[in-house]
């Protein structure tokens, strides 16, 4: 039988910011008696319970599924988006990755395009805005041909699935020195450019999406590959190469403007 869960004490240096117009600051908060089986989010729950009992305002943070698929949670932990463990969202990061007595620095995902709303909560709606500019295939409900009418080679389907695995958390943006959303964008562009269903609109999609990305205030890719490293779903920057290809093709060889 297992030993009783190990419990540790930590010090959080955590970003507090009352609202998007207010100035933020780091606050030191003790996280006491933390079970190593907790997720990082559960550790914050426990700290918040303690703050509430002391009559203080709990730390605001977004989270939802707590199983690494919805993309809601996220913070920069000790300088790394979603923390030190590779291919792991904040909600799947467990406290056994830390040691008793550690000081942990926790900040929101920072980017010009992501406004801080409160503490660790940021506004990622620009990502939806990008998708609205062309992250779709223009097909109305009804009238679709039989699913097997259009065979798609297995390796193409697999590559499309690799690109489609993005959870839209924004860690790539937070990790990028130029706060670029290129990895996020390239996932959707690649998925739809690889599949035959997406080809008729490929040029328009690439141009509209890249334009919107700029309007929203995201930077350009500078080949640092930090995005790939931070991505909890391990999206490859091969997708960015595809995005560039699609963008150049559309810019030089299509009638779209």
């Amino acid at each position, binding site marked *: *039988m297992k030993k*009783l*869960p190990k419990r540790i004490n930590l010090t959080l240096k955590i970003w507090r910011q009352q609202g998007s117009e207010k100035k933020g600051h780091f606050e030191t908060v003790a996280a006491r008696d933390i*079970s190593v*089986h*907790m*997720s990082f989010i*559960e550790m914050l*729950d426990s700290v*918040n*319970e303690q703050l*509430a*009992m002391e009559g203080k*305002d*709990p730390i605001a943070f*977004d*989270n*939802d*599924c*707590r*199983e690494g*698929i*919805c*993309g*809601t949670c996220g913070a920069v932990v000790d300088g790394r988006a979603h923390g030190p463990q590779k291919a*792991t969202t904040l909600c*799947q990061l*467990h406290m*056994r990755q830390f040691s008793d007595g550690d000081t942990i620095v926790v900040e929101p995902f920072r980017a010009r395009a992501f406004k801080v*709303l*409160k503490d660790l909560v940021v506004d*990622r*709606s620009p990502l*939806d805005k990008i*998708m*609205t500019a062309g992250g*779709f*295939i*223009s*097909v109305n*409900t*009804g009238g*679709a*041909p*039989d*699913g*097997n009418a*259009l*065979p*798609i080679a*297995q390796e193409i*389907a697999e590559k*499309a*699935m690799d690109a*489609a*695995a993005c*959870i*839209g958390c924004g860690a790539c943006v937070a990790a990028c020195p130029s706060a670029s959303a290129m990895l996020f964008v390239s996932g959707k562009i690649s998925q739809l450019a690889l*599949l035959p*269903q997406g080809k008729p609109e490929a040029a328009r999609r690439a141009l509209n999406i890249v334009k919107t990305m700029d309007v929203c205030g995201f930077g350009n890719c500078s080949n640092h590959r930090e995005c790939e490293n931070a991505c909890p779903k391990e999206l490859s920057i091969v997708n960015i190469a595809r995005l560039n290809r699609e963008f150049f093709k559309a810019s030089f060889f299509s009638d779209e403007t």
Partner: protein
Amino acid sequence: MQLDAHIPAGPLTEKWDRHRFELKLVNPANKRKFEIIVVGTGLAGASASASLAELGYHVKTFCIQDSPRRAHSIAAQGGINAAKNYTNEGDSIWRLFYDTVKGGDFRAREANVYRLAQLSNNIIDQCVAQGVPFARDYGGLLANRSFGGAQVARTFYARGQTGQQLLLGAYSALVRQISTGMVTLLARREMMDLVLVNGQARGIVVRNLINGVLESHAADAVVLCTGGYGNVYYLSTNAESSNVGAGFRAYRKGALFANPCFTQIHPTCIPHTGDHQSKLTLMSESLRNDGRVWVPKNGGDIRDPQDIPDKDRDYYLEQKYPSFGNLVPRDVASRAAKAQCDAGKGVGLTRCSVYLDFADAIKRDGRENIAKKYGNLFDMYELITDDSPYQKPMMIYPASHYTMGGLWVDYNLMSTIPGLFVLGEANFSDHGANRLGASALMQGLADGYFVIPYTIGGYFAGTTLAPVNTDHTAFKEATQTINDGIAKLMSINGKRTADNFARELGKIMWGYCGMSRDEQGLNKALTLIRELRAEFWQNVLVPGIDKDYNKSLEKTGRLADSLEFAEIMIHDALYRTESCGGHFREESQTEEGEAKRDDENFSCVSVWEYDGYDKAPKLHKEPLVFENVELSQRSYK
């Protein structure tokens, strides 16, 4: 109240076609005059919003998350069923219909389920056209697998992320309509109340979750796609913001609630490690194809599992169910695990789990082959528990996963409130007392893409709607009531947080209204819930202020609903003295210990009407008529 399901006449196979023909149409030029509110952006909400906007209706879509792409449909792993019969195994619409009715233990409407099976094929076509990257075989055609004990391979999948890919498909259709201006999206909003004018659903009041401001929105119809109520158990596979609030608030406004005690407990989840646990993670059911379930013969055997020899192990599923063994259905496997833990034979930190052992499978097939099949699941397990299933048996325990009950709807998916439609998990319509694997995604999308676009037109064409805007007193009154409620919660200033109360409510529900129920326990739960509710209104603590991003306040409001809603579940479980599907009454079992239905008395939907705070709800019944299938008793011996 007379419940009329409005099931069309005629033979089962022709009902939906006939109904679509008989439904009145709204002239295309007139559609733009109608405004529709859709609450929720999961599979049902996103697909409904997009499809209605494509037809020319003005749609306002609300979601509780920061983006519509994050609704909890995203977490569905396994797949989606369709009666394509691509595998040539003899599948058909009729077979999918039959399997679904039987799987639901004959507690669903034949006509609804048949329509669902018909539409299943259109869904796959639609999703492929949207670019959903389904798994494919070497020839490039769509791949299928058999799922959840089905005898034909009819499940379409995208790795272990089918829900995510289908939702992103529906989301893409939704954002396309946002780009045309036909859908207005309002994210980070929670529905606080439904607004009725002349008895019709004419709008909602929402709370802006960033600044706490209440906002009123008027429309010609309201479509709820707000998911299930599994979080009443506190520990469940649901997301944190999944809640019964919207449905419950509609119920309080007069919508009837059907079969609330029909909940599904999934047998293979990662067990909890202590009171800090906030949710449970599902491990795919497919693991039971190769894993062997066991517990030590002697309770309190503290040896490492690898050191316990075969003679000291109890492979209780293989013993008790020699022909199905580890592959018995979800509810049977769940109850058996609970029985072992209740008998003191549970293992793990909290003694609340059983082993799922792959040692024999690895010996037989080799580590490499097992890794090919389950590698990603083993990795996920190790990430969460820090134990490798290649070296040590997994530990699993059942968890609340899906709720079959929901707001009562007729064949048009309209509730008992005219103009209030309910789609997806939020309604009760298609799964009876138990949902089959890979059928939830199918129902959400069928409702949103292919049912509501027709039936809502029939409602508009046959109804007179007075002009209403948010200046109407009904909106003012609703806003006032909500404000009063929030002020009351903020003023209590007690000593226990919402999480703390919710955990206790969850324990009561899990203990007395979970995998098995009996009269004595249910009555005890009723008392405990009332005591807890009374304490809640005296002693809850909500930190912060209300006009702000305040998760504690959100959770407290939802908990207030759950504390009332839990009682309806208990009443329903008390009323239904038979066992069926996921609802197991100790008093009603066969000699073999299996669920025993009572078709004579309970071949009906139990439908509950709100009768005021602290009062027992009123019971109505919708009889279920089976003209096309013969009722049979399950046996897995």
